[in-house]
């Protein structure tokens, strides 16, 4: 079990056992804290209680009874894997119909899966499992914490839509074309699916026409986030200012054009989000941080790079519970030996919901 890897260092111990730590306030004082702007600041205190962050700042008044710990390292928010198939044995898809809006990726998740440990060890504390984009209305995503208790954070995040023809096309019944897929989608009235009005949608697209169709069909009142397929450069101008997921190429597979695309998407104001799932197969959990580090180097914008695997990723799936060290968020925190966008940084400890679920050998 994941919970078996309790922290032994930092005597008297980091908040390791929930029962004992109930109601207690912990004041974590790491060497540095990664702030929402991506910078690492010194002299910060992070207050946590019952798995939540009470506050963060330099001049916080410590409540009476708060236990203070100095931590050696950089404390960063746990990463959010914005689109993932980890923790599932079979892909969450149902090919027998074109429309499967009631499908829940939640039902494909195995909480006892070995993947979760690996994710924890890569600093990924929450994972967004998506139904496969093989259906025009593909079903609901699920948000799962990679460790701790009460791990199903949301059983319905956003309704996944897909207008990626290579996935929704069907040689027996159609559609054969993007035009046909758009026609089926626009007739289906996605806005009327219960839950869509509150939770919004996540649209898989590979074409500007598909983006316009989703906007046209859903109107302004429904939250839309995007998942970019194909060549995002060919339609990126349509996504200015929007939050959009981008699959990570395999190790060493960033092509010059791919890098230039990433740069131009960032320049156009697209809020890029990374995840471990990709059309050509799952990436390693460690690739998530690598992609953000690449983006940071390429764009010179560590804020956006950090957000791509934390706050923007949380926004992508529609939650404000995770993705930043901020008041009221879940205490999903990772202690690094250096800034997490520094490739040499190593993990020292992982806290999920305020509980230490992993610590590395060198942290002693």
């Amino acid at each position, binding site marked *: 079990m994941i919970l078996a890897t309790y922290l032994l260092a930092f005597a008297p111990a980091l908040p390791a056992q929930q029962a004992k730590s109930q109601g207690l306030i912990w004041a974590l004082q790491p060497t540095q804290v990664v702030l929402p702007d991506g910078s690492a600041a010194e002299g910060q205190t992070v207050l946590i209680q019952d798995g939540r962050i009470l506050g963060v700042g330099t001049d916080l008044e410590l409540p009476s009874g708060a236990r203070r710990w100095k931590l050696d390292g950089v404390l960063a928010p746990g990463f959010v894997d914005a689109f993932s198939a980890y923790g599932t044995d079979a892909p969450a898809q149902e090919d027998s119909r074109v429309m499967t809006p009631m499908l829940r990726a939640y039902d494909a998740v195995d909480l006892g899966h070995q993947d979760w440990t690996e994710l924890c060890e890569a600093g990924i504390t929450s994972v967004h499992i998506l139904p496969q984009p093989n259906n025009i209305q593909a079903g609901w995503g699920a948000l799962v914490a990679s460790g701790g208790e009460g791990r199903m954070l949301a059983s319905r995040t956003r309704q996944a839509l897909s207008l990626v023809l290579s996935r929704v096309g069907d040689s*027996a019944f*159609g*559609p*054969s074309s993007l*035009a046909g897929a758009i*026609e089926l989608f626009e007739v289906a009235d996605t806005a009327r699916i219960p839950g869509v009005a509150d939770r919004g949608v996540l649209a898989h697209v590979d074409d500007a*026409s598909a983006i316009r169709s989703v906007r046209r069909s859903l109107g302004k009142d429904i939250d839309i986030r995007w998942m970019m397929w194909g060549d995002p*450069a060919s339609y990126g101008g*349509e996504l200015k200012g929007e939050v959009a997921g981008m699959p990570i190429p395999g190790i060493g597979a960033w092509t010059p054009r791919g890098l230039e695309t990433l740069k131009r998407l960032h320049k156009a104001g697209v809020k890029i989000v990374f995840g471990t799932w990709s059309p050509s197969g799952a990436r390693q959990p460690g690739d998530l941080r690598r992609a953000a580090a690449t983006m940071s180097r390429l764009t010179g914008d560590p804020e956006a790079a950090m957000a791509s695997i934390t706050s923007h990723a949380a926004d992508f799936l529609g939650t404000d519970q995770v993705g930043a060290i901020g008041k009221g968020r879940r205490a999903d925190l990772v202690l690094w030996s250096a800034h997490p966008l520094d490739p040499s940084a190593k993990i020292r400890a992982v806290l999920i919901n305020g509980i230490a679920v992993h610590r590395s050998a060198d942290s002693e």
Partner: protein
Amino acid sequence: MFLTPLLSSLLLFTSADTPDELRRPQVSSYVVDYLHDGSGKVWENVVITVADGKISQILPGKDAPDGAIKIEGVHATPGLVDAFSYMAVDDDTVEQSRETTAGLKLAATIDLDAPAFGRAASEGVTTAFLTPDSLNAFGGLAAIVKTAGGESVDLFAEEGSAARMMNDAAALKISLGNDVAIGNRGPNRVPNSYFIRRPTTRMGTVWSIRSTFYSAMRYAEAREAGSVEYHADYEVVLAAMRGEIPIRVHARRNNDVQTALRLAAEFQWPGFVIEEGTEAYRAAQMLAKARIPVVAGPGYDTAQRAISRGPSLEEMRFWAAPPEICCEHLHEDAFVAEVGAFPVFPHHHECEVDGLSVFFHEEERDEWGIPVDHDDPLHHEHDHEEEVNPMLPEHELVRDVVLTIGGKELARGLQNGRFSEGDQSTPALPALLHKAGVQMAIGGAEAHDSISTESSLIHQARRAVAYGLPRDQAITSITSRAAVLCGVQDRVGSVEVGKDADLVLWSGDPLEHSSRPLLVVVDGEIVVDNR
């Protein structure tokens, strides 16, 4: 006082810092030596003034206002109008799982960043009628775009290079002929493909169209009674029958053209336009009598389709006007008037073009389409009369034109340009239609999809001239008359005060094959600058 130098330096700085503003002025004038106004008339020494995207003034003379653009010897035309184009029409835009997709808007899925638009603009085409593919009986709603000036969503594209939508419901496309049946087949044991359906023949295609019209009429009654839900396809068909949306019929063969005339009478269409019309010259008298216009397809479209190996620019330029160089007799009216005859080059015309030795030869084929090699020892000279296949009339024996340079075969099949039913296309089609009194425009079809611009709209017009079309008609058929057949004559197709400022400045007479566009202006903005 001391502010003045500061201000002037500031102004200097501003103007030096914004070259784009200088390139795309709000008001600009063009001094041209010749103006082809689009109606067929040519004016000498004209100053055209453009303001806020419209033509604001046309004055005679050579007096250039300050800042006017003046190029020596330049000819101006309206931006060309491609009245039948497949620019950016691809698999994404055609839904093949049904035969009737009348409600589909091409505009909804067209890629406005497609490179074809940029190529068309650089060849002087500023407005294009984009027609849905001919693979469905009802292909959906056509669109009209300006080929430049749109907002680009491609992050690697030049700003302003994308096309811009003018009309997203320009016409309802109906297709006749074998294209609709392509891929369809009869049922096998388990239907496992949407292609297992009718039509599989030309007759089936007409059945499909006819039954859709009857269904639409039944739907109209049921809708009146409130007993059916809204049906996008039928609503579009009914709107077309009421004359609210123009009808475009894609017909290549003579019998398809005649079928279109019959369908129009049967369902009382308010009017329609024939598209491509490869063999429309055979029904030219009927079309003239019924006052049905034709947008003629190209004599050939792309290098890839017309010929297996693409020739060089010079070779294709040569091909664009071959009679001027070596086949003068093709100008003769007698040749053109011979309806049904296929232009055939005599054996081995040798010419010198730009130092290249080029000749055509007519390749003889036997009755099964196999090239005849008289030097082949296995080839037996047969008595012609005995051996000719009685099913093939003599004049339809396959002959091929082969373009060779230095004895090496470079291009084959230039004479028979297009695939499938379009392969009988002839560059004499516009001349034949005009002669018969049919209202006619020239379309480029896939011409601009190819990187070799030598098949573009202006070259189609030049070829039509070479095959007997009067020069003024060649210009109007790609400008004002093309605009009329697309229903956009109020905005484009001629150089008149109040019309959109779409202009092309050519290095010489636009119908000369050596002329090229120096400046292309769309809505008053310079989009192509080859000065």
